[in-house]
């Protein structure tokens, strides 16, 4: 048998720095003098140089959010709430290399006619990927605009054929202490694991509800929830669960992690609503990343036309 023993210094082909990035590093070094002039320019260059190259995706552009002003990739990939890595929003970008996005399978189970496993490679190769620019509003009061790449959740669910008993959809993040350091800390962990989220079936089937596998033209960086995450643009960010391994169709409303931790402050619905404050802070305005000035938060994060009808006759103060 021919056993290939890799020497200590061996690195695989895809870890090799791309030539263009290597050249950029040269450019960056030339900027040494400029360092004294503007720190922000340098920070951007530095970030560009140190990024791991991401695989580009084939996708179709759409008109979703075409008039919105995008946040930069650096902003969206260095400000992440990913408690499986850290409570600090800058840390996931540094720590998330332990997440192994391939191979990856999602199990679809519960109240469906076709329980199934979907291999991530299948989604990359044989699903019609599209780009959608969405607003993203965190319950903490900050927001950003991100070009996501993926497919609608409805597209996936229709393949599994939910039964008439399927009233809710429950999502679960991968539980793997090897990948997620905070999952090793047991009861001392930041939050209980695995992270769970849920949607009502009509919310899940809504055309806006998106399963993202990429952003800014390429696959998701690990810290943004690789290899596949939910994006529900009219709800606070914590609903948009990352690194999903299980989608279960259920009859009862699932208990989502933040509601479990603090039910008086975080509910199941978590719709963006400037009129219903968080008990500790106002939700009337938001801080768009990179800006010193706040802007008004819109009802349903600006997606009222698409989703307001889902909640008519509901008291959104009680069902926050």
């Amino acid at each position, binding site marked *: 048998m021919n056993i290939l023993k890799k020497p200590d210094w061996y690195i695989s082909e895809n870890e090799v720095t791309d030539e263009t990035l290597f050249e950029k590093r040269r450019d960056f070094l030339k900027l040494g003098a400029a360092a004294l002039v503007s*720190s*922000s320019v340098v*920070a951007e260059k530095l970030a560009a140089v140190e990024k791991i190259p991401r695989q580009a995706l084939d996708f179709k552009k759409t008109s979703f959010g075409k008039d919105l002003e995008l946040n930069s990739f650096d*902003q969206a990939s*260095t*400000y992440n709430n990913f*408690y499986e890595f850290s*409570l600090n*929003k800058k840390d996931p970008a540094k720590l998330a290399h332990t997440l192994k996005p391939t191979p990856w399978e999602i199990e679809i189970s519960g109240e469906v006619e076709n329980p199934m496993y979907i291999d991530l490679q299948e989604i990359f190769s044989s699903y019609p990927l599209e780009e959608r620019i969405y607003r993203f509003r965190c319950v*903490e*009061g*900050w927001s950003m605009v991100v070009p996501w790449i993926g497919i609608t959740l409805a597209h996936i669910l229709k393949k599994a054929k939910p039964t008439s008993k399927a009233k809710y959809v429950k999502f679960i993040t991968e539980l793997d202490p090897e990948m997620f350091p905070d999952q090793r800390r047991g009861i001392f962990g*930041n*939050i209980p694991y695995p992270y769970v989220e849920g949607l009502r079936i009509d919310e899940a089937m809504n055309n806006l509800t998106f399963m993202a596998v990429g952003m800014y033209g390429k696959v998701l960086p690990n810290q943004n929830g690789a290899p596949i995450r939910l994006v529900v643009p009219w709800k606070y960010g914590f609903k948009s669960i990352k690194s999903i391994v299980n989608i279960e169709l259920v009859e009862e409303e699932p208990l989502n992690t933040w509601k479990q*931790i603090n039910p008086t402050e975080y509910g199941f619905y978590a719709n963006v609503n400037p009129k219903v*404050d968080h*008990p*500790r*802070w*106002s939700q009337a*305005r938001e*801080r768009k*990343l*990179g*800006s*010193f*000035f*706040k802007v008004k938060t819109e009802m349903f994060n600006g997606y009222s036309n698409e989703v307001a009808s889902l909640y008519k006759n509901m008291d959104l103060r009680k069902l926050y």
Partner: protein
Amino acid sequence: MKKAFLFVILLLPFLYLLWSVQTENDPIKYIFTFTGLSSLVLLITSLSLRPIKKVINLMRYRKMIGLYAFFYAFLHFLNFYILDAQLDFAFVVKETIDKPFVYLGMISFLILFFMALTSTKKLFLKFNKQHKAVYLVLILVTIHASIAQKVLSSLEYTFIVVTCILLGYRFYTMVLPNIKPYS
């Protein structure tokens, strides 16, 4: 001379803030965290000088450290009023009345403001008893800092422990000896 040196040292965090905030993703939040932590750390430092007096007597620096704690609290307040509330006075009043998180901070700020105003030699002689309210500030600010988080991290636990130690010391040395026994 040493005081002038300390004055510059304690100003450095502010200069660092002016520089570092330019590249922050969420500058308003960053200013809150930075000024709040600076103020709380300086408050704790100023209150630690008495317990360590027998080891090393730094009491003559207490006033400057305390005033700097107020300075960073003042920046924290300005960030709330100017950038966060965008000078909307009605909003500030409403939030202060509505939200425990905000009024704990606001009460603390007002006490520190009063202490800063009465920190001159002459006024301190008159108001030094009232300056004991700084221990109330310590309690309120520790709670304020803790509920600023969605879940507590080791940093907040550290503040809670340190606050308990400082309060325990104060109780042990100042309050207990003054309680008269029955006999």
